[in-house]
């Protein structure tokens, strides 16, 4: 077995070693070109991806894909937004449509916004945006047939929002006393409410166009711009009647998305620091051949990659060639990859087994299997440091082992405390430790990690049977509660916005457990009612719950809130132990020399279209 692992991981280890050398010689990411030289406006960022993968047809009301949020950064404006840059600065809220970021009143229950004057919708409407257009966006979120995929951020939080079964209707908790003022009334103090108002679904939507698309996803082909860019062909859409509206020519979800400058963009109402808008346009084509995308970037036919990570050989090429190194950008993805354990399934219903698994896994080898340090940082707890404002970093490492390579002695010491180690020799010897199904993805790097995990677990007597599935099938398998999957290697989670609530609530709230589509894979906080509903056995001692802690943190604001979430992360990592977090992953972008200024949008996790610059002479 060991020989097999060596042979499978040797090329990866070589690449990783080369990558480490390269990283040691250069920075891990950042801007291309001379920082002091102001980029010249113009040109088109030409890029490609293997598939858009939109989850809601690109309709802002329902769409829940980070890549779509990246495009919306140029297409849509919200009451508050981000600066569309990398690092902590990219997670700070700034006013966008609103004149300022307001403080809540009425004990945290009321937020009042005043809109900047003169901001317009782009073609085909070209009319001023009013507070009613923002209220209408919330009405769409509240309309069940629109299937707003993150409506839970607003349901039960804004008064009167509860998923109305029919078409959009006014919401009692949202008032628009005049065209420039908008007031939100909440049912409970919600510390991250302003972050929720920076989500693209809350951007103004014109009723006269969107009413023609009464069901989920339909409006995605005709999104009317409120930002610096619009979908090409928006100015040729006939909106005289619903029947006359045809899809904008610049967007075909299976082929391309082309954005051009919005002639009605209110540049004076925006901050150049938040959106520099150097580009004249953005051209994204679908290219099914990922290698071909990176060849095109290297040849200059494209200006950069977008969503596809570079194949290992391409990464190695860029990291080891000094002339290309500056074009390789690795930025924090605010995402944790983890090995998930099911708290209701033996032997993982025993915390000592879960801790022993944390002690034995060779995280350093897993990182090498991903391609080395450029791919990210070894995770030592649940949430990426950036989500916790860098106040809880990898210095908090309750399962530290030398070189993060795992420790057999430490793991066996923990296993001896387990009821599944009857003779206390440090090996899981019960029948429950044998032939456990482990779900995994069927492609690299997951397939590269698999032998490492299988072998590590075998060292403490846990024998797993990997089942490799396509991404969606793998997720759906572990999302179906009564499948009772004991352990899974396929899981990862990224933030929605830079607040720990977006990790804590979906992943660890007992109340959020549903029979299918469940993302609390470890079933933390599962109640006996939920267990009997979903047809599974609840362990005799029950499972730990952190629901109270989540509710308490959610209601807090500013400093006590952050401290609360740090305590939460420490508690889950050390006392609940649902996962083996192994990687806080980077997102990799490769650019061509034509990109004179590179920037990364920390909110969306992709290249920042409103901050980058190119020097090509391409026009659309």
């Amino acid at each position, binding site marked *: 077995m060991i020989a097999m692992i060596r042979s499978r991981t040797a090329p990866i280890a070589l690449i990783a070693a080369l990558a480490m050398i390269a990283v040691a010689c250069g920075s891990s990411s950042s801007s291309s070109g001379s920082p002091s030289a102001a980029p010249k406006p113009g040109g088109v960022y030409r890029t490609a991806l293997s598939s858009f993968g939109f989850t809601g047809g690109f309709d802002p009301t329902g769409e829940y894909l980070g890549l779509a949020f990246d495009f919306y950064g140029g297409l849509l404006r919200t009451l508050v937004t981000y600066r569309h840059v990398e690092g902590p600065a990219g997670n700070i809220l700034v006013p966008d449509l609103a004149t300022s970021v307001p403080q809540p009143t009425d004990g945290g229950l009321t937020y009042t916004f005043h809109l900047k004057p003169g901001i317009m919708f782009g073609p085909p409407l070209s009319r001023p945006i009013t507070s009613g257009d923002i209220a209408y966006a919330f009405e769409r979120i509240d309309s069940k047939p629109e299937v707003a*995929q*993150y409506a839970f951020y607003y349901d039960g939080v804004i008064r009167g929002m509860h998923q109305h079964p029919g078409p959009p209707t006014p919401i009692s908790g949202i008032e628009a006393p005049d065209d420039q003022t908008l007031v939100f009334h909440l049912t409970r103090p919600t510390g991250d409410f302003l972050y929720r108002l920076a989500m693209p679904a809350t951007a103004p939507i014109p009723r006269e166009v969107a009413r023609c698309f009464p069901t*989920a996803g339909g409006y995605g082909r005709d999104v009317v711009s409120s930002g610096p860019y619009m979908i090409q062909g928006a100015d040729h859409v006939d909106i005289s009647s619903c029947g006359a509206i045809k899809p904008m020519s610049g967007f075909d979800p299976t082929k391309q998305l082309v954005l051009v400058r919005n002639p009605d963009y209110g540049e004076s109402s925006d901050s150049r620091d938040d959106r520099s808008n150097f580009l004249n346009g953005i051209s994204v084509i679908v290219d099914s051949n990922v290698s*071909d995308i990176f060849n095109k970037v290297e040849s200059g036919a494209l200006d950069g990659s977008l969503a596809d990570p570079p194949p290992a050989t391409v990464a190695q090429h860029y990291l080891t060639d000094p002339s290309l190194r500056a074009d390789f950008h690795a930025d924090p993805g605010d995402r944790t990859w983890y090995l998930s354990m099911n708290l209701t399934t033996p032997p993982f219903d025993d915390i000592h087994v879960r801790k022993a698994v944390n002690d034995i896994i060779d995280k350093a080898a897993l990182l090498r299997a991903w391609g080395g340090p450029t791919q990210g940082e070894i995770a030592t707890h649940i949430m990426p440091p950036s989500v916790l404002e860098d106040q809880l970093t990898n210095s908090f490492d309750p399962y530290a082992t030398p070189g993060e390579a795992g420790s057999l002695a430490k793991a066996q010491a923990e296993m001896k405390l387990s009821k599944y180690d009857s003779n206390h020799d440090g090996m899981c010897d019960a029948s429950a430790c044998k032939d456990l199904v482990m779900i995994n993805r069927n492609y690299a790097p997951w397939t590269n990690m698999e032998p490492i995990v299988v072998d590590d677990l075998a060292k403490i007597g846990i024998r797993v049977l990997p089942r490799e599935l396509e991404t969606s*099938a793998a997720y759906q398998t572990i999302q179906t509660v009564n499948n009772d999957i004991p352990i899974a290697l396929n899981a990862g989670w990224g933030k929605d916005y830079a607040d720990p609530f977006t990790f804590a609530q979906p992943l660890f709230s007992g109340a959020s457990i549903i029979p*299918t589509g469940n993302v609390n894979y470890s079933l933390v906080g599962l109640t006996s009612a939920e267990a009997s509903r979903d047809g599974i056995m609840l362990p005799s001692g029950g499972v730990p719950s952190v629901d109270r802690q989540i509710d308490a943190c959610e209601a807090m604001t500013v400093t006590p809130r952050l401290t609360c979430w740090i305590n939460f992360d420490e508690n889950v990592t050390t006392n609940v132990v649902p996962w083996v977090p192994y990687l806080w992953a980077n997102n990799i972008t490769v650019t061509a020399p034509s990109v004179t200024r590179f920037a990364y949008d920390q909110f969306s996790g992709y290249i920042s279209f409103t901050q980058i610059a190119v020097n090509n002479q391409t026009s659309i």
Partner: protein
Amino acid sequence: MLRYIARRLLWVVFVVLVITLLTYLIFFVMPPTDPAVAFAGKQPTSADIAEVRRLFGLDKPVWAQYLLFLKHLFLGDGWGWPGLGFSFTTRSPVRSIIASRAFVTLQLSLGAALVWLSVGIPIGVLSALRPRSLRDRLAMAFALFGVSAPVFWLGLMCLWLFWFKLHWAAGSGYVSIGTSLGQWFSHLLMPWIVLALLFTAFYARMARGTLIETMGEDYIRTARAKGLPEWKVVVKHGLRSSLTPIVTMLGLDLGTLLGGAIITETVFNLQGLGLYSIQSVYRGDLPGVLAVTVLASLAIAVMNLIVDVVYAFLDPRVRFA
């Protein structure tokens, strides 16, 4: 003849119906993923999943969904005739997606067929006329290479060498003929050749084998005894009857390719039916899967019919029954 064609057309409809029924059953009995869960978002609620199920019509019994599909297929739906439904992933009518993609696949298939016929048959004929000669051995070595080289490898190598390194050829992607005739041709040339290579090898071997067999027939000896020139003996008497199995193969191959040349389209980024079908399968987009299945099965069935009709012209011994 007309009665024969009408009867065969009815058979085509029956075959297509059976195939769509099987596709439906496979999709529901062995689903890789649940579309409702897949399209309800990253952290769905049970209500979201139920709403998506209702929206996609997945809340109805399977038989009701299938009958609705048939009704739309034959009578049309809100987006025209034939009604192919609304894509779960792109949230747009499948009919327009299929139309644009079928045109790309058609160009790829017909162009490749032209290449493999115009190269494969002459190679086969030349080999057959001088069996075991150097020319024959070289031709068969070429055929062996063509059969052995996988399209995905050959495509990637050709792109890397002729586009990326040598800059002799246009890169991947499709340019419509209306945009630029030159660009259209240069972007399709490499896919045509790569796709045709495998078939060229098969056709060359087939042409060689059948022609060698035909040239040993009595009527060929008679033709030669009558004093006909050799080219006339080969072309008029030998080739004509040896073409019959090749026409059969061509019909079946074209029919299969019209359903999508998945690997070639993926490697060369040609947004055709093959690429769409594989993407639809991966995403659990049932309307997309069904639309391609209908079109592919229709193409194969119709090409079979055409082959049978052409057969009778090529071989007078065949009569319509």
